[in-house]
């Protein structure tokens, strides 16, 4: 029974992805992308990874979908006809070959998992009960710090290029009642995801994405427009997360002598403090990535 569900879901994912990539209409393509993203989130649940499923639904499908929709209306359609038949044939053969080779290599790879034993051994000392949060914010916290730096680098690039700021249109009378329901829900869910991330699936990234979704709803409703004051606040928030994370790293170095090795017994306080800063910072960064940061008009 569950096997039939998995097969159906896998076929659905490949089918919607193929449709999304094959359509001529861009809006339809992006819609297909969002639907595929949600199906993929479901497949991550089936694979026993609810943390990843939450992130995929909120960031992969939701925010990336919003970014793509924004640009779908701005980018000009590509001129020129289809690629030549030979190029398409070669691309199809190479893609099929690589795809089959990948599946075969992974399928026949000898499977001895090294990490689960190490993770469950260290979990008791990590300060949190959720193994994924333990890996992200204790065992491999250096990776997470660099990940925020990557996000920040993307933000700097967008700042330099300064794409046009989207102009939301009036969305009708029901937008305000909708916002009154959805914004508090976003804020509550974000806080909930952040706090529960210590014990059950959730965490800073999902919470930040949720909050960013709330910001985008406000933006679409004509509130939280990127005025200079909102922008300055957003930039300060985006920087603050990275700064607090970096300062925490230096503080651990000073306290314990090892970079990002939390003092014994206080791991949970450190993790929650860093995660809270990250949540606000990620939300601000995602909002700024969507809105773009206009240059100040030259005087």
């Amino acid at each position: 029974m569950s096997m039939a569900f998995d097969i159906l879901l896998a076929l659905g994912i490949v089918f919607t992805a193929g449709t999304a990539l094959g359509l001529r209409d861009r809006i339809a393509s992006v819609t297909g992308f969002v639907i595929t993203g949600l199906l993929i989130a479901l497949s991550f649940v089936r694979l026993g990874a609810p943390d990843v499923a939450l992130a995929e639904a909120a960031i992969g499908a939701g925010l990336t979908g919003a970014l793509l929709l924004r640009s779908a209306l701005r980018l000009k359609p590509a001129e020129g006809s289809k690629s030549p038949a030979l190029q398409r044939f070669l691309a199809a053969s190479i893609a099929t070959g690589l795809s089959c080779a990948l599946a075969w290599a992974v399928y026949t790879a000898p499977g001895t998992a090294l990490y689960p034993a190490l993770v469950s051994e260290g979990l008791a000392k990590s300060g949190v009960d959720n193994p994924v949060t333990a890996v992200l914010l204790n065992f491999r916290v250096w990776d997470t710090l660099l990940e925020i730096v990557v996000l920040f680098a993307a933000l700097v690039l967008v700042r330099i290029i300064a794409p046009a700021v989207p102009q939301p249109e009036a969305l009708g009378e029901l937008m305000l009642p909708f916002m009154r329901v959805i914004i508090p829900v976003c804020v509550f869910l974000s806080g909930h995801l952040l706090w529960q991330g210590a014990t059950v699936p959730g965490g800073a990234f999902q919470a930040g994405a949720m909050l960013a979704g709330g910001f985008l709803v406000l933006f679409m409703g004509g509130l939280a427009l990127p005025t200079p004051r909102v922008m300055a606040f957003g930039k300060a928030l985006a920087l603050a997360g990275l700064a607090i994370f970096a300062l925490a790293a230096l503080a651990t170095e000073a306290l314990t002598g090892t970079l990002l090795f939390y003092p014994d017994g206080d791991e949970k306080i450190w993790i929650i403090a860093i995660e809270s800063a990250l949540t606000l910072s990620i939300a601000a960064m995602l909002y700024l990535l969507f809105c773009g940061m206009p240059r100040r008009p030259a005087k």
Partner: protein
Amino acid sequence: MTPDFIYIFAGAGLVGLAMYRLATRRDMLLRVLALNFLAIGVAMILQASAFGETLTDAVPQAFVLTGIVVLVGVTAALLALAEQIDGHDDE
């Protein structure tokens, strides 16, 4: 029977589709879309290989989570660059 091997093939299918479209579509938005599908396909394979009967390996989960967040940054940067290229064509 476990669901993991089904999703290995689904992920490989996504990778194949994305690579084909990446090579044949000229539309920049669709190329960014294809890149997203490529990354998600790889994430799915990684996640499927982390699947265990009793508990799922947490380390690949953290990798995939990191990948998803980096991907949204890359997408935003690429779209900003694509809009910049479009703007240059006008001049």
